[in-house]
């Protein structure tokens, strides 16, 4: 997995690419999210457009980030959730937890 990030309107957009399957690659996303939280950047969008798939390790990172942000008055939103990841969120019932949007712009616009 590779990870790039940028800021727009004070919101951090993270763009992982490839497969999130555990090990050092998954740590990249986890560490970046926590780096944002520690830097007081607590409005985050994860753009999943270029993620081929993720497993339960990836879901665990999303949950951990969501919970940590919520506990620190922040918010995590998902954009461009692919069919494969949406299917995974559905079978695990996590689709009821995460707010997801069809585009990064829509996700950014949803922040109050």
């Amino acid at each position: 997995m590779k990870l790039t990030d940028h800021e727009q309107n004070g919101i951090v957009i993270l763009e992982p690419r490839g497969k999130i399957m555990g090990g050092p690659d998954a740590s990249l996303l986890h560490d970046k999210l926590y780096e944002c939280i520690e830097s007081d950047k607590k409005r985050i969008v994860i753009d999943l457009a270029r993620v081929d798939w993720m497993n339960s390790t990836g879901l665990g990172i999303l949950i951990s980030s969501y919970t940590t942000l919520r506990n620190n008055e922040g918010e995590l939103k998902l954009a461009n959730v692919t069919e494969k990841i949406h299917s995974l969120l559905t079978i695990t019932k996590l689709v009821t937890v995460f707010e997801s949007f069809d585009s990064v712009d829509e996700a950014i616009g949803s922040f109050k």
Partner: protein
Amino acid sequence: MSACFFGVSNRMKKPIISGNTIKVPSDQVFLPDVDNFLESALREYGAGDSVIADIAISVSELVNNAMMHGNKASPDKMVSVTVSLNKNAATITVSDEGDGFLPETIDDPLADENLMKEVGRGIFIVRSLMDKVVIDATAKGTSVSVTKAI
């Protein structure tokens, strides 16, 4: 002297590929090696992207379990992954060298009290994505075989 020797030995461990089987040390750094091996075999057989992803997700869960729970991340213990392709289906067997890990003992990940837990969904996802899952846990290790129509 001997500690140094064994340290070097562990770091030098690499995936071993023999026919339709790949063996990797119990270190998650080797997950992409297993994924590449698996995807290559399935793609060569003509499987579609969606089926390949379902199988790859499931096998990554099983290999993670085998490394971390079965072999308890011991670099001296290997995880083997064997791909068997027949007429209409792929069967993949993941085996560890642990003490017999039983995934059924894990809590229901869909229960309200477990929904926000960061771990504990692996085998549930495998059962959801695969057509058949057979677990054989013995004192010499656990083997999990998954089958998916392709």
